[in-house]
């Protein structure tokens, strides 16, 4: 499993209920019920210095649009590039893979944490960290002690992904680009929602996060479980928000009608799943409803998430009247290569 795009279930640290987040959420509205689009007023576009509140409730002050930005998560990197600020990124992570030029950025975040010497040496005006322990909280604190401006971005739901894009847009002074991305994403999300609502079936869906050494499933109320529900499925989850693994017994009992292979990018394909002992009794296996997906666009809280939801909805309902996603790799097909 590549931890970089796994939205882990969360026993949560106290999360500041921030006014900015609320404002952003109002601004962006709810994906599932498209809201009135607020026109950005010239006043909030021009206002520098800006005071922003990040997703952990920390207030940061930006004197002017940052020119040197470090991203500490692949999602933040994608957001910055989508906002047209890719040329202002001076550092990234060693899991950056999209867009392709992001991979060339000096690595500041690795699997072990933040390379503090690198972070300081790059002299950033702004560091875009990821919450929910993706960027180790100790590293965030240490960077702030060393005088860096750190904005912590962390989305628990699709709506919060949208508000995070708006927040990063405000921080980078790319408010208009953010509004464009959001309206595009909202339109696509609404399209998926309309298509999903047009079919009455809600099949029981097991989204396989991983299968080595145990079987891993979304936790209740986790990001992936929400995505499955938005994609028109009834998510099969583990027993507890803090537990990832699921027993085959429970799977057999809950009998998935569709199995989405979220680990297809790591070489897990339907042929192997069919041969697993005990799995032949599941409806999904009997009906051959084993659907590989590119998990990056489905689980990474970035600008491609709407395409990810479309891909997931099509994996759950292959006959859905929906434009196929413009992004994401085709996996497990003849001649396709696992990443």
């Amino acid at each position, binding site marked *: 499993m590549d931890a970089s795009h796994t939205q882990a279930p969360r026993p949560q640290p106290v999360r500041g209920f921030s006014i900015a987040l609320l404002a952003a959420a109002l601004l962006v509205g709810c994906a599932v019920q498209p809201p009135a689009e607020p026109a950005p007023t010239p006043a909030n576009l021009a206002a520098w210095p800006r005071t922003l509140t990040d997703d952990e409730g920390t207030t940061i002050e930006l004197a002017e649009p940052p020119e040197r930005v470090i991203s500490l998560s692949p999602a933040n990197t994608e957001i910055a590039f989508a906002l047209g600020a890719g040329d202002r990124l001076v550092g990234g992570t060693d899991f950056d893979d999209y867009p392709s030029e992001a991979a060339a950025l000096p690595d500041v975040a690795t699997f*072990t944490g933040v390379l503090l010497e690198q972070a300081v040496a790059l002299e950033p005006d702004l560091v875009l960290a990821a919450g929910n322990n993706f960027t180790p909280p100790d590293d965030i604190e*240490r960077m702030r002690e060393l005088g860096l401006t750190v904005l912590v971005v962390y989305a628990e739901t699709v709506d919060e992904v949208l508000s995070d894009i708006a927040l990063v847009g405000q921080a980078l002074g790319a408010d208009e680009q953010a509004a464009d991305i959001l309206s595009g994403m909202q339109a696509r999300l609404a399209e998926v929602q309309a298509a999903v609502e047009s079919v009455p079936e809600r099949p029981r869906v097991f989204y396989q996060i991983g299968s080595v050494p145990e079987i891993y499933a979304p936790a209740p109320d986790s990001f992936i479980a929400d995505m499955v529900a938005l994609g028109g499925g009834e998510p099969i989850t583990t027993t507890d928000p803090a537990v990832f693994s699921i027993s085959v017994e429970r799977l057999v009992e809950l009998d998935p009608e569709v199995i989405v292979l979220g680990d297809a990018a790591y070489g897990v394909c339907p042929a192997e799943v069919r041969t697993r002992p005990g799995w032949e009794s599941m409806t999904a296996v009997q009906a051959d409803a084993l659907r590989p997906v590119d998990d990056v666009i489905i689980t990474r809280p970035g600008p491609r998430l709407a395409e990810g939801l479309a891909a997931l909805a099509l994996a759950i309902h292959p006959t859905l009247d929906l434009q196929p996603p413009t992004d994401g790799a085709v996996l497990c097909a003849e001649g396709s290569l696992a990443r």
Partner: protein
Amino acid sequence: MSTRADAVRPGAVIGWRPRLARRTAALVTIGLVALAVALVAGVALGNVYVAPADTIALVTHRLLGWPVEVTWPASAETIIWELRLPRVLTAMITGVGLALAGAAFQGLLRNPLADPFVLGTASGAALGAALALVVPVQFALLGFGLVHVSAFAGAVLAVAVVYRLSRLGELNSLTSVLLTGYAVGSLLAAGLALTMYLSGSHLRQIFFYLLGSFSLSSWPQLAVGLPIIAVGSGVILTRARALNALLLGEETAAHLGLDVRRERLVLLGAATLITAAAVAMSGLIGFVGLVIPHLVRLLVGPNARLLLPLSALFGASFMAFADLFARMPGELPVGIITAIVGAPFFLYLLRRYRSGYAL
């Protein structure tokens, strides 16, 4: 018979022979040089390049207040002064502490496999840290958070429980002490595993805590940790006589006039304090506390008067070098480096000096 007469001449200390004296002098020299090289290399090198001239100017400017013209970027000053220097010093003091604690536990328990973590310290600290990471309340003061405090408390509590349960204060079998330590450690390890299983997104942090790292060292942290380790180390260093006597067995030691219970308690307390402070600052760094004392014993024998100071010296430079190797390529957990570098070297020494080695 002249050699025999030499050995018993007045004032001679047991085991103190001219050859050993020369070797000790050589080892002290090597140790001091290694320490100096580790300090310089640790400050000069890292995963970011800072020009050596800037580094020298910057350090003399900060240290001696020389009015040097500031030619370096502010980031270089932060890297050298706020990141590297406290980090090198923390690694050194941790190396001193763990090596001395290891030597003390090995002597105290007369067991060559004893290390600073043998009586449940590691599991206690790890469980404390893991619980602190998982609970939704966090605070931080002077670079110390709940994690550090509860790792410290976990380590001390684990040893306190082992001490009570095994009646280490009484003159009874050391086997029961070791087994009690093992059992308590296993229980705590199970608690740790359960915490990790239920830790959700905190798993990665707990995992890296278990492998140890100096990446978050800072001056405030050092200012709290240093006095604790220094006091503990000082206490152990002054207990060389007691450790030598304990090597003969508790009864013999008691007949020699040693207050065995008191000495045990003092040594155990000091070693535990050091270990708890070390794990609170930098996680679980294995191998140093086990191997450095053995290495010194292989070279100069078991006399604690030599063993303790030399272990401290080599522990400091070994840990500083291990940390340097850990951060050069990025941030590898330092516990991996200590084992990869240390184990083959130790095996080599063990083969070479095998004859007649005893604790």
